[in-house]
């Protein structure tokens, strides 16, 4: 189990990236971390990995303090945490849109890289052979074994990183933006493997991505972070239900759309001949609204959408920022 209690991380210069976060993650749970750029996701991950010293608070990963002192001396056989990062990395001069996990070495072939992983993490020969035989076909990497890592495409590389991290079977697997710049086919393969892990419930997984739909398919729980604080922590279902009322209707008309009169609509927009309405279905029923529009204008086409998790999150951010603005105005 991962226990995070009142953890704060303030960097010199006064930026508080993580502010008083408390969190529990059970063994075998698959958790999705959601947040905009700069919300504090990566800082939180580095704190969990023990790569940052918390300014305040308490972190335990499987009863161990992940922060191992300043020289990072590690005992042999400690392969508790596996970290895969898929973020844009920079060498100070150029930006590489690539994956900066450091799990694989650029100038080595994939085969040699995996052998290196085998000896660093002391994987027994037989186990190594079996895991490799299971992983490679699943990820479709057999053909890439004799390529150097820098020759691999982004998607192949990410798959290779996932293979590398799964070879040593960490108790906690952290994937930070693994889907950046990756095509649908590769994404599907990675997702399949992650879903399998989630089903087996042996590995605890923390996943961050901008793609909320992806998270919803894989994760048991969503944690929303904004400005270094948790704004939502619970199931995706509850997240949806709490905002379930919010619907969107789009109708295309011949000529001008009709006047809406006094329907209590949340948001309305007309673009060319298309009318887009966001409304709360507990206040206005979709049926009444559609009937009214159909009888007052010449409709060509109609769409009604339930909100996606992504929309809900956008909405929550908006609310959060409104609250923030209101607060700061009060202070003035």
């Amino acid at each position: 189990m991962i226990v995070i209690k009142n953890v704060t991380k303030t960097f010199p210069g006064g930026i508080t990236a993580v502010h008083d976060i408390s969190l529990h993650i059970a063994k075998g749970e698959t958790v999705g971390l959601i947040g905009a750029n700069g919300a504090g996701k990566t800082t939180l991950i580095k704190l969990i990995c023990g790569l940052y010293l918390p300014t305040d608070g308490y972190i335990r990963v499987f009863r161990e303090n992940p922060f191992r002192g300043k020289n990072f001396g590690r005992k042999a056989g400690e392969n508790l945490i596996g970290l895969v990062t898929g973020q844009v990395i920079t060498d100070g001069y150029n930006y590489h849109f690539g994956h900066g996990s450091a799990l694989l070495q650029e100038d080595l072939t994939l085969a040699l890289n995996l052998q290196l992983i085998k000896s660093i993490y002391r994987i027994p020969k037989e186990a190594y052979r079996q895991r490799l035989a299971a992983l490679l076909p699943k990820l479709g990497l057999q053909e890439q074994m004799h390529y150097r890592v820098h020759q691999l495409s982004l998607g192949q590389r990410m798959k290779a990183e996932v293979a590398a991290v799964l070879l040593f079977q960490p108790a906690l697997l952290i994937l930070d933006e693994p889907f950046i710049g990756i095509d649908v086919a590769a994404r599907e393969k990675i997702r399949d493997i992650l879903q399998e892990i989630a089903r087996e419930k042996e590995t605890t997984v923390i996943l961050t991505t901008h793609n909320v739909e992806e998270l919803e398919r894989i994760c048991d729980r969503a944690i929303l972070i904004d400005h270094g604080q948790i704004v939502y922590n619970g199931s995706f279902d509850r997240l949806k239900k709490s905002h379930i009322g919010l619907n969107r209707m789009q109708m295309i008309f011949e000529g001008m759309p009709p006047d809406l009169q006094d329907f209590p609509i949340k948001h309305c927009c007309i673009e060319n001949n298309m009318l887009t309405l966001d409304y709360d279905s507990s206040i206005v029923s979709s049926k009444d609204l559609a009937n009214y529009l159909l009888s007052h204008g010449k409709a060509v086409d109609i769409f009604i959408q339930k909100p996606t998790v992504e929309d809900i999150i956008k909405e929550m951010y908006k609310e959060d920022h409104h609250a923030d603005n209101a607060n700061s105005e009060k202070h003035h």
Partner: protein
Amino acid sequence: MTRYLSFAGIKFRSKMAYRFDYVLGILNTLLSFVVYWSIYKALYNGASEVDGVTFSMVTTSFLISLGLSAAFHKNEMFLQDKIKQGTIANELLKPVNFKLRMLFEDMGEGAFHVVFNFLPTVIIACFFAPIQAPSGARDVLLCLVSVILGYVVLWEISFIVQSWSFTLFSVWGLITIKNVMVNILAGAYIPMWFMPDWLRSAIRFTPFDSIYFTPVQLYLGELGGKEIVFHFARQLFWITALWAVGEYFWRSGIKKLVIQGG
């Protein structure tokens, strides 16, 4: 230990794939040797010795230095690249000592250069240049031990310079200065015999002559019993001292990383 040896072994194996690279490497090493040999041939102009140093001593000394600079491989931008890419943190998650892993990786690459660049050069050079045979089997053995110690001394100097990447934007300049100093003061280009006395006695107080010159002297059988012990002791002293300095820089760099982020 097997972990670190596999870092070296895998580096060695991966280098073998670049075949064209090592043909060029041989050419490069051979060319430097021929240039140097020609210059000294002209300088000696048929004389059998200058200041008690024979032509074959100079040539042999240079050949050994050349071999050592091939063997003494170090990836000097390694730490800076890791820090700039932000992957240093992830490196720390691996259950290995970062410094040792770096050392062994460089050694693996060095071993490759010795086998595939230096040894062919020696064989070719023997056909036309007066290469002195080692003074005895014992000297060869002692020379090999001091080569390894000398390498660690050189590697630690490089690591200390590299650890400045935690504070500086680029350590390239520092590394260049360091390399010029090492090449001149350690006697890689001009054998110590030809240096002015004041400079030689000054260098004696620095780690530089432990790097190339001690192995050369051992190979040529120039050192007596007591001197051998003294030279080994000095190499070990520098290894310990430089390791401590490197460790201090490393730890303060990591401390910065852990508190200030990176």
